[in-house]
């Protein structure tokens, strides 16, 4: 009987909105709770070359399929595909997930001495919000932002973090840059008008040359 009660209690706990899982897991510097996960948060350790925090930013960024509607050819999206900050800034991202599935907001290529594997990672469960803070380095650079669930970046969940002047746009950031490989969207039967125009060119040139003689 005691066992049944324990199990029933465990069941209730699992259904409750907050569970006892929130804690630090050493090697990955990971914060996990029922809202999601924050990995490699950094509030105070300055990157090399930064004497002080230049400025504090606070961004509300939403994710979900609803943002795909405005971008033809995507399935998922972000409310903000480009984030611009000053070098040595402290950036807080309040990431809210409007979908009924998980999404992530990850920055890559950060200095590994501060961020293990060079990554700052937010993961929000369905309908949940997570917030995390990190400090960007002092040099002008553009960093990749994406959701690393299979095909989410490819199908629209890609962004860029521009520090200072940045280092050039990344490819296929919705609303910022086009795709490196792009499908052909030529209307059906385009070969007909194209051939006609080609012939026209020949005729025009021939006539022109004749008239000049």
């Amino acid at each position: 009987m005691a066992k049944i009660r324990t199990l029933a209690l465990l069941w209730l706990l699992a259904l409750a909105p907050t569970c006892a899982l929130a804690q630090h897991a050493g090697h990955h510097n990971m914060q996990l709770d029922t809202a999601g996960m924050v990995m490699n948060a950094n509030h105070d350790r300055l990157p090399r070359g930064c004497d002080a925090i230049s400025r504090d930013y606070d961004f509300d960024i939403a994710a979900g399929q609803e943002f795909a509607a405005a971008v033809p050819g995507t399935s998922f999206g972000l409310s903000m595909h480009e984030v611009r900050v000053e070098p040595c800034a402290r950036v807080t991202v309040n990431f809210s997930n409007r979908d009924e599935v998980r999404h992530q907001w990850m920055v890559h290529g950060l200095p590994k001495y501060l961020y293990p594997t060079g990554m700052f990672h937010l993961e929000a469960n369905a309908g949940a919000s997570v917030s995390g803070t990190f400090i960007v380095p002092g040099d002008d650079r553009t960093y990749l932002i994406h959701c690393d669930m299979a095909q989410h970046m490819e199908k629209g969940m890609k962004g860029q973090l521009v520090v200072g002047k940045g280092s050039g746009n990344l490819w296929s950031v919705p609303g910022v840059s086009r795709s490196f490989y792009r499908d052909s969207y030529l209307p059906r039967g385009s070969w007909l008008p194209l051939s006609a125009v080609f012939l026209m060119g020949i005729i025009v040139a021939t006539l022109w040359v004749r008239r000049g003689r």
Partner: protein
Amino acid sequence: MRSTRLALICIALVLLAWPPQWYPDTVRIALTQWFGAAPWRSLPGPLAANAETPEDYCPGGEAGWRDEQEIEGVTVQAVAGCVADNPWLVAAAVRGTNNVSHRVLMRSGLTADAVEKGADLDGDGDPDVIHIRLEVAELNGSSAESRDPVTSYALAPGITPGLWVFAPKLAGMATENFESNQARSALRLPSPALRVEQGDRVIITLENTHYMPHTLHLHGADHGFTTATGAGNDGVPLTSEVPVMPGMARSYELTPRHAGTMFYHCHVQPHVHVMMGLQGLFVIEENRPNNWVQTINVGAGQVRAPAVAVRESYQQEYDLHYLDLDQQLSERIQHSNDPRVITRSMHREYDITDASMDYFTLNGRSFPYTFRESLVVAAPGDRIKLRVVNGGAKGIALHTHGHKFVVVAEDGSAVPEAARSARDVVWLATSQRAELDLILENDGVHAYGPGIWPFHDHQYQGVTNDGIGPGGNISAIVYEEYMGESGWPRTQGVSWDNYFTVAYYRKQLPVWQSYAPGLFGDPGPDWILLLRLSVLMLALGGLLGTLLSWLRSGR
């Protein structure tokens, strides 16, 4: 005059260069009567052997994963083969992700709500309220920046067809790490085998993380047409419900009254979606006291924590999921990155009535990778339970060497004792399941004694990779005395070096190169003939040029 001389030279060269084997046979026979046979000239010798270094047969997985271990009260059986499932995931799938410690959960890779196990409704010491969450993942998909398949997963060396799978709910990234493009180990073909106990109140939430609509259909498992709230529960867009759209989720409910081996799959455009890999085994174990079942079996294969009823009669249990794939379908997700273009290509331009299957998988791999993770390893006297599904488009004639299976259940219903017989070919129609007893009793019927005994589809396309054999779903029953320490069987036939190269399955290597390169290797080129034909062509060209110049000058 000059041109006449040139024409005559050209004609002479044509006659000289013309290969004698091209003369009409009558001319050749007449010549033979005067001169006899032509003198000996050797045929070209063999080409040099392939230089590609074969992959490591048995690269091994994470250290310690193969060992037998006890994790928070769950006994996880050892894996004798080369690659094993994550034992922490096995333990979390048995206890429930809500009942394990934070440490076990982190090492399992699952989210805290991936498999929730709750109340013990019948008071027999195990949880009966089970909530499973599944996501949908695309493997070997496209990207707007790269021509390589992303979230890559190889069936066999160099074979990476596009795939869709139901996936256990895993925290974090889809790839091994950011530098890697490899799908993480729990993200793979086939969709996981799911396991519950008879009478459990089961909820399966489909969280559609994919860019196309999908549903969940519980094929053969006892479920109501609607859920308690009246929502569709059969997964059929035509009759039951609107599909789960990208980014959306829906829960399906069932309380299965009968034990048996069932099936689950997507029911949206099934001739495309099910064939892309959206299908898995759904096993309902008999109700027993203290029966904690392994709710998720990643990649099917050996069940490392078998249920109580299985342990009563068997030493081991294996889930065997057969699936064939059509390259002309699966490559379509790799040709475009626009979901609209992909949708049109897969559902309108692809025509399954013209299709033929190219790849034949067992538990998500084709030979030789099947030998890394789908061997059945056992000792004399063992009894082994095999749960088999054929998820492919064509039937499977499942044949084993060295043994005869006893079919104890079909489509989740027991075969009456009196109707059972020992069989060495078991036919499985599309989506059919069978429960097979493998009895390693050396009685000349059930088993013929220790060895490395292949088992495979006896329909011949099934033992190839796109027509190249050996390939497809070949695996083996290996007796422990024939297993090496590292998990690779001590085979005594030919070298497998060729089979662990990409070139072999690209049809670039002679099939018997490894042991008879001189005899059956590809012949080298005939350079002398090429030289002769070059002279012939030059002369013919010269002749034609001369004729044309005569025509133009009006001669």
